[in-house]
């Protein structure tokens, strides 16, 4: 995958300092609490997904068993357990968005990208995901790319968004603490 160019595991000194700052937010001996924040960081630093090696590395940082990391990584939908494209498009598929055209947006994207929901394009550019209510129901239908919300989407504005991301080289996934 192209995304390997962004790989930063093991973490560099700057990221390790960030990790220690976050562990310090929890009492002595409760460092496991930093697991979710650390998985977010690791996912961003490791090319947008969590391989078993990345998860084992996080376990070693927190001095917990690898299984404790796998348990958590498999529970939360934001953690990707397989490689993703440079740009992950997340379409809200819950109630208010669905009532307002999200269904058409999803099938339009599937057609344009020649993939199904959950898949990545063969050039590694795009991953298409559906997600649950993004708390933006007033401007349905909503798409999230990285940290940005795109609201009141139409098939036309979806096309513009795709054009933008075709040119983009930096990935959509982000380290929330940077």
């Amino acid at each position: 995958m192209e995304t390997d160019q962004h790989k930063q595991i093991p973490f560099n000194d700057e990221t390790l300092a960030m990790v220690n700052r976050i562990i310090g937010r929890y009492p002595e001996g409760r460092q496991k609490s930093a697991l979710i924040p650390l998985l977010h960081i690791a996912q961003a630093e490791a090319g947008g997904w969590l391989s078993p090696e990345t998860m084992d590395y996080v376990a070693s940082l927190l001095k917990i068993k690898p299984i404790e990391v796998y348990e958590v990584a498999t529970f939360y939908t934001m953690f990707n357990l397989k490689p993703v494209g440079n740009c992950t498009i997340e379409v809200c598929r819950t109630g208010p968005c669905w009532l307002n055209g999200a269904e058409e947006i999803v099938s339009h994207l599937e057609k344009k990208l020649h993939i199904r929901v959950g898949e990545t394009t063969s050039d590694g550019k795009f991953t298409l995901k559906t997600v649950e209510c993004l708390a933006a129901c007033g401007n349905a239908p909503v798409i999230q790319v990285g940290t940005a919300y795109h609201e009141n989407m139409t098939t036309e504005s979806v096309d513009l968004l795709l054009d933008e991301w075709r040119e983009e080289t930096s990935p959509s996934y982000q380290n929330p603490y940077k």
Partner: protein
Amino acid sequence: MSLRILTENIDIPELTSFEVYRKLGGYRSVEKSLKTMSPSGVMEEVKKSTLRGRGGAGFPTGMKWSFLARGIGKPHYLICNADESEPGTFKDRYLMERNPHLLIDGMITSAFALEANTAYIYVRGELFRVLRILEKAIGEAYANGFLGKNILGSGYSLDIFCHPGAGAYICGEETALIESVEGKRGNPRIKPPFPAIAGLWDCPTVVNNVETLASVPWIINNGGEEYAKIGVWKSTGTKLMSACGHISKPGVYEVKMGLPVEEFIYSEEYCGGIRKGNKLKAVIAGGSSVPILPADLILKTAAGEPRLITYESLSEGGFETGTMLGSGGFIVMDNTTCIVKNLWNFTRFYRHESCGQCSPCREGTGWMEKVLYGIENGEGKMPDIDLLEDVAKNIEGHTICPLGDAAAWPVRSAIRHFRSEFEEHVKLKKCPF
């Protein structure tokens, strides 16, 4: 007439900065409480206000605080529930994006009342943007002496940290949320013990919603009795309503408790009526988990009284003819909406979000989703409608946490009020919309 307690100044873009918030009178409640009041004095004011939890259940906040197990030799914790994931609800995000210091202001005052020296904000994982806004605001509060050791020379110390989730609706349930802060899967705990006795790391813990905590500064600044004068009976103060669906002006509105639902839907000040001149068909008044009501029953109670935005009025008539205020996620549907399709979508949501610990919830949500999918797509049979109701009844009250009920109530209410629409799907062997 509108009254702004939570959204005053919210249109000033610089409000997210400490200086602007402070200049407009922010953090006065911290000064007042830490310098002139005792923790129990702050709690008494909140009790007098009769503020009720804005996360959905409406439990009286002062009473919840009074249950905290004090003096058992363990630290106390305050956790702000900023997981906002109930479909139709987008008020906490709005508040945190535009006025993060109001939340911090309320959290310092509340943590002081609870004698907690550490507080966490559990921010929904998808909201990295909000996480960054909050982290910046918290940093400013530290830099200005409102957080950290010996705040304003009062001898009281407090740290606030953000803790992100990672995509799981169930983590909004307070014990699942605590598990998640502990670095585990979000599996709700069996209660009792309640968090007030044994919560985060087995220590006494209070979990409150963003809007609840953001209401505290006004109460301390103006007095609990003043707050209690706003609203109707046991529904005091103001409520943030996030309105969406088929209305002319979707958005977040702060309303005085007691506003008639009809005025909320049709007046220009709020939702501005139904879009494209269509007719109102149904409303889900408090987030996807509460019972759906048809137009006539949302505007007036079965007894013919105007329905008001209060806890009591919205639940008037019980589940037969009433609903709940819930989170204030107000989803409006016009006459082009298919109730079955909409219900199928929400049931799919609950199936996806069930943590899987209890068989009635895990299996029942999947079963209901399949049956609904069948009916919506023309493959349903008449007995399926009763089957659906049966499955829902068997989930209700038989699970560890209320997500099971939250999945069952929409199904039961949709069949109660719109049975003929289900039957029409079966007869036509397709969706009539």
